[in-house]
């Protein structure tokens, strides 16, 4: 099903009136994910994203963050995984067991980990693939201009083969491509991966701006809690396939364990050595 | 594949673990089967014997392909081309050098093996689909060579008439024994393997040898190396197995089998030319392997038997189709064979890609675990 294009949406990225009484647009209820019928990866995950929110999903490697995103976007099916318990709802519609392309057509667009551009297509063609699910010519053109406005570096690269862009440029194109679909919810998988710290900051600034200006809800999966918490409204922390902590970004940023574990700071704000962190990890488990 | 054994059958040593035949009743069964096959000409019709004969030759070719494709994971569309090499070599050895068929057979096998090795060389550089194309080129180049080059010897596209295999026995007390006849030219008693019920003894005997060898390859270090190359050549390399060397060995062995099958086929048909076996036969052999079950020692036997029988069914069905739709009189005979083979292969690929061997194991396991298994 194609997301109905209301006149307000047609005016491209115009700020939506945010209702404060927001019902969650995405709701994950107690899901369990199993790969290849045998490997249990997620157990009892529940989370929700409200209209216009930026939600971060934090956690170490292998905690199950990406799997959670794939469960939403349907890409799990491609990897022989399945949601075996619980359900995922988007505006009251069940997403689990829906093919990825159909999820995208509902208005949920995922920016895959590692950018994943169409390498032999040009920058502009890559952006246009994002709009393949739309059929309003004028609207697409407008969106394209909007993307170029968000990422001023891109117009100069428009006819360049995407595979030859730098990592940061590729990330911009990937986010721009997602925007071209005019999504209601954008899923970002580790946008900071492999980028220089300054670039990471830029990217998150733009994510913040997109959220504020066009009202797109965003769910970011990150290892880099520092930047992720800065841009987010609400955050969840995952470990070993479970959610172990959640709260507003401010609450989490204040949490002592988070500081110690993810931000690598001691109570007084000093950096800790790697050895200490490791020692700490062994001592302290979230689910002790 | 889980090994399902009757209760009480345990291994107490490595030697026992490697035993092929573990119980007396299996011996008895084996002896009965072999006896039944060897006495086939006594009770079966010539057409049945001829059919079994063709199945036997096909099994040998598929066994070779099984080493290459089933165990080592290299797909080949050239098996029939190497059969051509074997057929020509044995024929030339017999007609030009005057060798006996049984002396020519191993040399033909070796020659085919070496040529196969040559076409296996691209496997050093390419794999998967690209290798398929390299072997496909063998399927074109070898027949072309046989009909274009050395025309004086190979007689071009017309091909060669192949002599009937003969065993010569001495004359004892002015008598020829054992159903042989006197040959004035050599002053010996000759047994000619001319009719299917005579030729089948060659096929069966060779088949028993190749089966034993294949089975032993599959459970030796060589076989395990093949399997490791198939499953993950990088990991195999890390284990100290040179994947290229083993791929080439597999190519060589597969072509040796093809050479044997080709020599048998040529002698059975008494005629060989560049078109005797072709691309279609290579496809047929691969199909047999899939239908029977890749990488199992019973797979080639099941596959070759089923596919050949299906072809026979096509022949049987033809008059039926013609009665139903007389307009098809011309087409039906020609259509049914590829149609049935194609359909059977497609159904196997979709519904039972592990082939008949897998079914067979399920049945065997079910039988042994009776009454506990459903």
């Amino acid at each position: 099903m194609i997301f109905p294009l209301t006149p307000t949406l047609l005016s491209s990225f115009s700020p939506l009136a945010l209702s404060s009484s927001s019902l969650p647009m995405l709701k994950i209820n107690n899901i369990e994910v199993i790969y290849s019928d045998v490997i249990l990866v997620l157990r009892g995950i529940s989370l929700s994203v409200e209209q216009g929110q930026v939600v971060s999903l934090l956690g170490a490697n292998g905690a199950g963050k990406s799997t959670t995103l794939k469960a939403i976007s349907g890409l799990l099916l491609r990897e022989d995984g399945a949601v075996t318990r619980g359900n995922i709802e988007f505006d009251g519609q069940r997403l689990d067991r829906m093919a990825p392309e159909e999820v995208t057509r509902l208005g949920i667009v995922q920016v895959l980990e590692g950018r994943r551009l169409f390498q032999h297509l040009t920058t502009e063609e890559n952006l246009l693939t994002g709009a393949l699910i739309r059929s309003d010519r004028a609207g697409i053109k407008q969106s394209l201009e909007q993307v170029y406005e968000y990422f001023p570096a891109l117009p100069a690269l428009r006819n360049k083969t995407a595979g030859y862009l730098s990592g940061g440029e590729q990330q911009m194109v990937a986010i721009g491509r997602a925007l071209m679909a005019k999504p209601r919810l954008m899923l970002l998988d580790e946008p900071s991966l492999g980028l220089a710290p300054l670039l990471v900051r830029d990217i998150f600034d733009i994510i913040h701006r997109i959220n504020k200006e066009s009202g797109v809800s965003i769910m970011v999966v990150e290892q880099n809690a520092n930047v992720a918490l800065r841009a987010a409204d609400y955050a969840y922390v995952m470990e070993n396939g479970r959610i172990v902590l959640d709260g507003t970004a401010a609450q989490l940023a204040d949490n002592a364990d988070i500081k110690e574990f993810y931000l690598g700071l001691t109570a007084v704000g000093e950096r800790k050595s790697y050895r200490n962190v490791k020692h700490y990890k062994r001592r302290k488990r979230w689910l002790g | 594949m889980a090994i399902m054994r009757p209760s009480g059958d345990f291994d107490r040593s490595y030697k026992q673990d490697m035993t092929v035949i573990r119980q007396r009743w299996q011996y008895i069964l084996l002896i009965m089967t072999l006896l039944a096959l060897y006495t086939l000409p006594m009770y079966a019709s010539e057409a049945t014997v001829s059919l079994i004969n063709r199945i036997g030759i096909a099994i040998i070719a598929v066994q070779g392909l099984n080493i290459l494709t089933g165990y080592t994971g290299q797909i080949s569309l050239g098996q029939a081309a190497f059969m051509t090499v074997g057929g020509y070599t044995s024929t030339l050895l017999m007609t030009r050098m005057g060798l006996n068929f049984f002396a020519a057979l191993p040399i033909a096998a070796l020659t085919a093996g070496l040529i196969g090795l040559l076409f296996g060389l691209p496997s050093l550089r390419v794999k998967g689909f690209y290798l398929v194309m390299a072997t496909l080129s063998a399927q074109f180049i070898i027949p072309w060579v046989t009909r274009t080059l050395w025309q004086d010897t190979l007689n071009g596209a017309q091909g060669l008439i192949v002599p009937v295999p003969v065993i010569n026995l001495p004359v004892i007390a002015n008598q020829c024994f054992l159903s042989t006849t006197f040959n004035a030219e050599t002053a010996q008693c000759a047994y000619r393997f001319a009719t299917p019920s005579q030729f089948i003894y060659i096929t069966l005997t060779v088949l028993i040898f190749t089966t034993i060898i294949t089975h032993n390859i599959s459970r030796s270090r060589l076989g395990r190396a093949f399997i490791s190359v198939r499953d993950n050549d990088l990991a195999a390399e890390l284990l100290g197995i040179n994947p290229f060397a083993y791929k080439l060995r597999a190519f060589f062995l597969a072509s040796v089998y093809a050479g044997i099958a080709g020599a048998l086929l040529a002698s059975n048909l008494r005629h060989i030319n560049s078109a005797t076996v072709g691309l279609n036969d290579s496809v047929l052999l691969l199909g047999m392997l899939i239908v029977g079950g890749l990488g199992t020692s019973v797979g080639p036997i099941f596959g070759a038997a089923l596919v050949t029988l299906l072809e026979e069914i096509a022949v049987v069905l033809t008059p039926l189709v013609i009665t139903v739709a007389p307009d098809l009189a011309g087409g039906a005979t020609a259509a049914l064979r590829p149609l049935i083979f194609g359909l059977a292969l497609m159904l196997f690929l979709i519904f039972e890609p592990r082939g008949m061997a897998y079914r067979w194991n399920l049945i065997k396991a079910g039988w042994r675990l009776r009454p506990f298994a459903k």
Partner: protein
Amino acid sequence: MNWQLLPQFAITGFLNGGPIALIALGIVLIFKSSEIFNFSQGQMLLIGTLSTWWFWAEEGLGLPLWAAIILGLTVSAILGLLIERLTLRPMTGQPLLSIILMTLALSQFLQGMAILTFGTTQRNFPAIFEVTSPYKISLPFFTYNNNPMMLILKQNLVWSFGVAMLCVILLWAFFQYTRTGLSMRATAEDHETAQSVGIRINHIFGISWALAGIIGTVGGILIATASGLDLSLPIVVLAAFPAVLLGGLESIPGAVIGSLLIGLTQGLVALPNNDFILGAEAAQVIRSSSEIIPYIILLIVLVIRPDGLFGQKRIERI
């Protein structure tokens, strides 16, 4: 060597590559989108061409040729869709061998179907182009024994080449300028990403099979107009297979250039004559090698440059 025939054979061979290019393109299209090498391309175009004949012939529907061609192409498109849906979609995720064997099995099955439906009799396909009176061109600048060199080009050959190249250009424009074309190019690059931007890749696979059926059939019709129609038509793909690999499995311009090069080489091996430097017998051997020269080129390509002339090396950059 027959030097005076060099331009003649080179150009004839080159033009012969035209219809082969269409068939090769069909194979590349399917491979690009779904990584399936379609060994049944020949049988698909056989059925498409036979249907076209049936719509046109008096024994069949007796329609005008243009209508018959349109209907024939429709049949091949539907056939392509059906094949993808019924036989290859269930194979998703299966190993390479299974998929290769599936298309080989399909080729057998379709051949059987074609015989069962249309019988074994040979057919005369309508001649679309003038059969006799070839184009005779005297070459500027080239002379042989002080005579200007002449090129004799069959009308059929020239026009078939023209139609084939027109199809190639249309196809290129389709990929470059249409949304479906863009979807197909995106799908060819990366299935997962394509799905994540909302492309229904199963539809794309279906479209590639349908398109491959159509352009293959155009090639089949072009060949049939020149030389009649018979159950052995599928063997034309045997020249297309190496052409595809020569050009690079995933490259559309590669398939075209590969086919033309294969045609060119096949033309050139016909050159040696009785005063060939290695002797008359060697000359005859070389002349008769035109059927295997594509496969010799194939072997060379595999050893020297497996990706082919224009094969996509994955752009590796992080």
